[in-house]
């Protein structure tokens, strides 16, 4: 995926994997089941208001806590096209790349983008544009190696092609 565009759903700092997908739902790994409960412990309305292509914008340390891949899977299955945060917890970062959920780090975007804005992201150039305000921000583009994994739609395909 080279670009994304959608409406922003905004959260604060330290959004942990226990609120992204609570452990009581981990007995399944079915993406559509997980999506039904995504974010429910901090935002009961998420599952009902999210629509395909939406973008999450959050503060620092997004995805901290457990290594459950169910967290990025739930977010991806909810239709989220990209997560932009100040910083990501490292396991969540890895998992997102490995399953092909685009993510990007950018301080300014968090500071300036409001909930409900329409935002577009150009992954190759690392450009985030707030279409509502017209402002542009520069995020971190991926190192080539990670971009290859994303382009292969995940680590396993990347290895298979190897």
């Amino acid at each position, binding site marked *: 995926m080279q670009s994304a565009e959608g409406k922003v759903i905004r959260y604060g700092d*330290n959004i942990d994997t226990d609120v992204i997908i609570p452990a009581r739902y981990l007995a399944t790994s079915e993406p559509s089941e997980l999506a039904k409960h995504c974010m429910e412990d901090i935002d009961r309305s998420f599952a009902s208001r999210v629509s395909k292509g939406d973008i999450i914008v959050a503060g620092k340390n997004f995805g901290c806590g457990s*290594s459950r891949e169910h967290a990025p899977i739930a977010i991806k299955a909810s239709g989220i096209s990209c997560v932009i945060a100040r910083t990501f917890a490292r396991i969540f970062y890895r*998992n997102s790349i490995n399953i092909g959920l685009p993510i990007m780090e950018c301080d300014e975007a968090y500071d300036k983008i409001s909930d409900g804005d329409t935002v577009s992201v150009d992954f190759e150039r690392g450009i985030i544009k707030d279409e509502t305000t017209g402002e542009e921000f520069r995020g971190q583009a991926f190192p080539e190696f990670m971009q290859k994994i994303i382009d292969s739609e995940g680590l396993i395909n990347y290895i*298979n092609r190897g």
Partner: protein
Amino acid sequence: MGMTMTQKILAAHAHQDSVQTGQLIEADLDLVLGNDITAPVAIKEMDKFSNKGVFDKDKIALVPDHFVPAKDIKSAENCKCVREFARKNKITNYFEVGQMGIEHALLPEKGLVSPGDLIIGADSHTCTYGALGAFSTGVGSTDMAAGMATGKAWFKVPSAIKFNLTGKLGKWVSGKDVILHIIGMTGVDGALYQSMEFTGEGVAELGMDDRFTISNMAIEAGAKNGIFPVDEKTIEYEKAHGADQGVITSADPDAEYTKVYNIDLSEIRPTVAFPHLPENARTFEDIPEIKIDQVVIGSCTNGRMSDLRTAAAILKGRHIAEGMRCIVIPATEAIYLKAMEEGLLKIFIEAGAVVSTPTCGPCLGGYMGILAAGERCVSTTNRNFVGRMGDVTSEIYLASPATAAASAIEGKIADPTGY
């Protein structure tokens, strides 16, 4: 420029003379771990590989421990999936109910971790084995699948923060208080993408169980790993558990650190992390009277022998407060058995506690002690996020086994000093 201890282990496994911070490497794995939640996802992914099968049946550990003994039908299905995979691939280190334990207590106990090893596990607390001078880190299920298939994983070489320890811990103060104090200083993202390297003469004063507890919670500071140097205590532990000698690694004298913290262990006091982040560390001067409903003593952080001994020493001849529930969970079957032989289980049960078979259980809000709305729990586990142990309005206070035991007796968050 010199390398940190972590960088040296990574370089050795990437077959390179040296590596630098930020470099992307591909490294050989000595062990790949998964549990009943993460392994089924990885096993499904394995099917997508063009090359079927595992890279080395002796270098994979599968430990159903989270919802085990199976708490419901779906958990039972997950366990079945892991069990059948283990059988089909003749995995040596599969641990069935009755021989299992919480993975991060079990692997070192079974002698599966040696100094200098490079280990990944599809569980964030895989960082625990840093206590033995190994590089170990948590990954997701896809990384686990790729690791099982190829015996390799990609890493970005981390920078490191140095924690220079001096002095000696006081009575009823333990590794848990040290790491809660540290996370209180660094914050939950203070070591993001970095290694935490513990060093200094104070290390020798820490028992292995304290070191396991400290390395275990490195992830709660955002770290990639938390590593200790190898000393006589490590070697003794490894001998006792039949582990290979491994490769003893130490940081170069001119290794660079992004930050150095000096910590005098004798100044650490019993510490409690308030809801809802492990960084909300407080000592008893700043803790008002807070009534609690439940105490949990267990988990991969504090379910080891010395933790149970400490809790039993405080609970012996006493009874938990009226209306309290106290749940004690030995982390492995071997610990359970030893606690029985030493008479600790009797002490717990006579004090009014319940003793469970090894399981993660309440630590991640699975079962065996879920909290109702508004309930408060003092827990020796490692995370106090919103809803982690039950209802979203419940509260978890993270503490040491000594603080947890004193709190069970008093029915409120209580200072163990004086017991």
